[in-house]
């Protein structure tokens, strides 16, 4: 095997980078902070369509991200990001020094503009201030997630064979009248974080996932199974406890069944709706997870991902106020098993469990060091980047609605007239997350406690607070779903996060 980048490459360079960062900060004028992120990964994938192989490959990649805070009267940030290759690894000190210098020059220029704009703008410029990071505990740590089947050891041919085999099995179900795409991916990732404050975090994790996309007529469905573990995820060690083949075949059978179902009629008035854990994973993501990101609350995402109705300002906000029925508790916890599982974030902060809604009362946000300083809070370790060349943003971890104490079957049996929504599909959410529309894969009519009819192409819409306030039953079941593509930032970053919840009952309009 020719020389190449591997996750072990980080082992060779981490102490050198640690010393380089400490030295660089001392050597640069008005430089107050440097942090460096390096990520290396070794990945394999295969894709098949309609029973035929389409693409496969294996890749090892490395990337670099630099943040510098510098300035004289005012402090400001500058960043640098780059993809790295083997020649860069051989000259890593030089490459990082170049990145630090660019970021430092950008930070100094940015700081000079702050001073100039404050002068030009008078009172309107008062809010422009020095960049400040909340103080954190300094950690030096090595973290490695456990796994059984190392993604690096799985032969690419095994992955191709599995993808083609699953695709063939699905194809047989609808006698070539439809379309299916099967995609399998397994990776081993190592992330290094080093800062001029003395933080050195070295985290390693595997991740394996499978995607299935099925189209039959105008009915198309897409679902995803995955876990932060090795190849064993494909054979059942995942949140669904199903092997990927059964998962994809199940989705195809659902699509066939749904293609024969009636389209759900929308309603102009609210109806009773029961939603399952898969649906509520997306609900938790959209109407709880996103509005509790402190950068949204502080209007930093106004042009992109949007604001949060939970925080109008330091005086007008929902902290300590009722935003849901007392049956609803929601939190983020990076220590739970799921896509949002990690020990330290991309600022080197140890992740903490953050309770957002405690029995209906809103309690607080996921934050970064900078937003924690503005809000006067302790950093809770929610800054993450999709890759080291991208800047970290405040992201969900495993953000979930807590289970209740009701048997899910009883929640349905109590309903004379209502609907049961199973599995989430596509969301559309108001800019400040105050209103939502989420479609479901399957919608059942409930009559006298029984599921009597299946509909397709349906969903619910409601104002977010109204929906949460009307929750009158929460199940004792609970599932954390892997969410593969949470989009945020500019350039857009698609990040894997975990979301989940129990069966719930509330009221909403059908769409």
């Amino acid at each position, binding site marked *: 095997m020719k020389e190449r980048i591997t996750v072990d490459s980080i082992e060779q360079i981490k102490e050198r980078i640690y010393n380089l960062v400490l030295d660089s900060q001392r050597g640069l004028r008005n430089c107050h902070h440097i942090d460096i992120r390096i990520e290396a990964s070794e990945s394999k994938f295969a894709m098949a369509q309609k029973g035929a192989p389409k693409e496969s490959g294996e890749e090892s990649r490395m990337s670099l991200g630099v943040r510098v805070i510098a300035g004289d009267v005012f402090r400001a940030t500058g960043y640098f990001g780059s993809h790295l290759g083997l*020649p860069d690894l051989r000259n890593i000190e030089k490459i990082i020094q170049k990145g630090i210098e660019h970021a430092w020059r950008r930070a100094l220029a940015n700081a000079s*503009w702050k001073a100039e704009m404050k002068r030009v703008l008078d009172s309107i410029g008062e809010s422009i201030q020095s960049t400040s990071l909340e103080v954190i505990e300094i950690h030096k740590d090595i973290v490695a997630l456990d796994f059984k089947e190392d993604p690096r050891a799985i032969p690419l041919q095994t992955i191709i064979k599995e993808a083609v085999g699953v695709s063939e099995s699905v194809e047989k179900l609808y006698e070539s009248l439809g379309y299916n795409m099967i995609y399998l991916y397994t990776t081993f990732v190592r992330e290094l974080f080093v800062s001029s404050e003395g933080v050195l975090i070295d985290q390693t994790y595997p991740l394996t996932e499978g995607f299935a996309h099925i189209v039959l007529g105008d009915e198309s469905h897409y679902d995803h199974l995955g876990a932060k573990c090795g190849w064993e995820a494909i054979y059942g060690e995942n949140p669904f406890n199903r092997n990927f083949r059964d998962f994809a075949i199940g989705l195809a059978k659902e699509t066939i069944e749904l293609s024969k179902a009636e389209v759900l009629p929308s309603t102009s008035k609210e109806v009773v709706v029961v939603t399952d854990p898969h649906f509520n994973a997306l609900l938790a993501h959209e109407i709880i997870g996103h509005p509790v990101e402190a950068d949204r609350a502080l*209007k930093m995402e106004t042009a992109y991902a949007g604001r949060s109705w939970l925080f109008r300002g330091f005086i007008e906000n929902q902290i300590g106020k009722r935003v849901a029925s007392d049956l609803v508790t929601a939190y983020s916890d990076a220590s739970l098993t799921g896509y949002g599982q990690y020990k330290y974030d991309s600022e080197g902060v140890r992740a903490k469990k953050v309770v957002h809604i405690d029995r209906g009362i809103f309690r607080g946000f996921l934050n970064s060091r900078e937003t924690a300083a503005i809000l006067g809070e302790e950093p809770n370790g929610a800054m993450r980047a999709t890759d080291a060349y991208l800047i970290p943003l405040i992201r969900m971890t495993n953000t979930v609605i807590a289970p209740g104490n009701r048997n899910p079957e009883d929640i349905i049996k109590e309903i004379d007239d209502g609907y049961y929504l199973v599995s989430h599909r596509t969301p559309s959410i*108001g800019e*400040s997350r105050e209103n939502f529309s989420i479609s479901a894969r399957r919608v059942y009519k409930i009559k006298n406690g029984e599921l009597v009819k299946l509909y397709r192409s349906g969903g619910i819409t409601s104002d977010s607070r109204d929906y949460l306030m009307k929750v009158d039953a929460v199940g004792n079941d609970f599932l954390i779903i892997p969410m593969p593509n949470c989009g945020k930032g500019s350039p857009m970053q698609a990040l894997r996060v975990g979301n989940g919840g129990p069966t719930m009952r509330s009221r909403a309009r059908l769409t």
Partner: protein
Amino acid sequence: MVAIEDLRKCVKDGLQFVKSQKDVRDAEIFASWNDQVTVRINYTSDIPCNGVQEPKNISGYGVGVLVVFDTSDTIKIGFGSDTGDLTLEGLERALDKARRGAVSDPDFKSLPFSSDESPKLTSYHDKSIMELEDEEMVSLGWRALKGALMTFKESGYKRSLIVGGDVTILKEKMAIANTQGIDDYDESTALMSSITAMVEEKDSKGTGWTTATHLDKFKPEESGEMAARSAISTIGGKRIESGKYNVVFGRQAVATLFSEMIVSALSLSSIDSGNSPFVGKLGEKVASDTVSIYDDGARAGEIGSKKITCEGLTTGRTDLIEKGRLVGFLTNHYYSKKYESNVRKFIPRNGFRFGGGRDFRQSASIFATNIVIEGTREVTSEKLISRIKNGIYIGRLWYLYPVHGLARADFTGTVIGDSYIIRNGKLGEPLKPNTVRISDNFVKLLQNIKGISKEKKSTITWGSEEVVIAPEIAVKEINLENVAEFVESL
């Protein structure tokens, strides 16, 4: 920065090397360098802020190889890439990956081949952007912010202000050579500024944007001024009752409708998967006969334009909908060959590797470039609005998705700014942001187009790669719903 000569040498030497391998039947070598600079703006008058939040970039270069291998019983196709190394050593690593990942794809017909068609664009990039200094890139962001804040200041607004958005600069260089005679290169630059401004306590929101291919034509402050002016003019927004309305979609809203849904539905890969409402509709009437839509990757002066595609083919115009009839699809070489027949050819003008530039780490898939929307009898903006008489002007849409799958064409989203109530043929009171949900069907929308404005503007939306040369479009009977009244009592 990597010189274009180095990229050209890499693909030329690389092709010779790969061709010399015993098991190689055909090969394509693609090398590129990209630097995507983003200066993100975040100003809040009532919350401590940085003004310019992040001056940042993502750079990278390398080589990607697409290889057709001969095996004992069939051909196999593989793709591999290597980062940061344009030497034969890097190429060998990429070739190894291509060989290990090669599969027998029954739909693969050939690599793209050269034609006599000459590119329309040559030397259309700005060298000064390629060499932009760190200090200069930071200043472009502050100029956009200054444009907005000075507009607010001069109009007497000092409190509850938000200005966000970014200035983005794309620097791209690529070279390509293959065994079918393609040997070409391209260099392009693009500048974009997209700003959102709010007077939050007044529930008003405005959008401003500008684009250019050359630095001396780029005026980021204009995008800030435009956003602030729109925010000021939408102060005092009102709610509307739920119902069906005649609507004029503004340029940002039009760009969102196309970028989020309609462009995807017009891609041959969506037709291939059956996931488009246009499956089986080629030649049929799918839209109002007043509307024509085409993609043009060679349109002079547009930031979506390129000399050649990432398959080395000449860019140009692809007609998609002509006077309401579906006449074509966006495609790359792979799908054009898969669907070629004796009576129908799809010209592959849209095989790109977009993703923060022209990404050597992926093979070419289908991307739009400049989507142009034209009407048969275009009218001025004022006339378009006057034709509606009573209705809604929707300036900007948000989180617009096909909720029941692309093939069904049902969509929903919310109206978040730059919007007005149309009364007696004129713009009346502003529409309050975040109070209206739009839920409809985009095929029905295309069929219900009643008019298109003459004035068009190159428009980009968050997260999209293509540019929409967007007019304002009048459409009858759109479902709008009054939402989120609870927010007013918080």
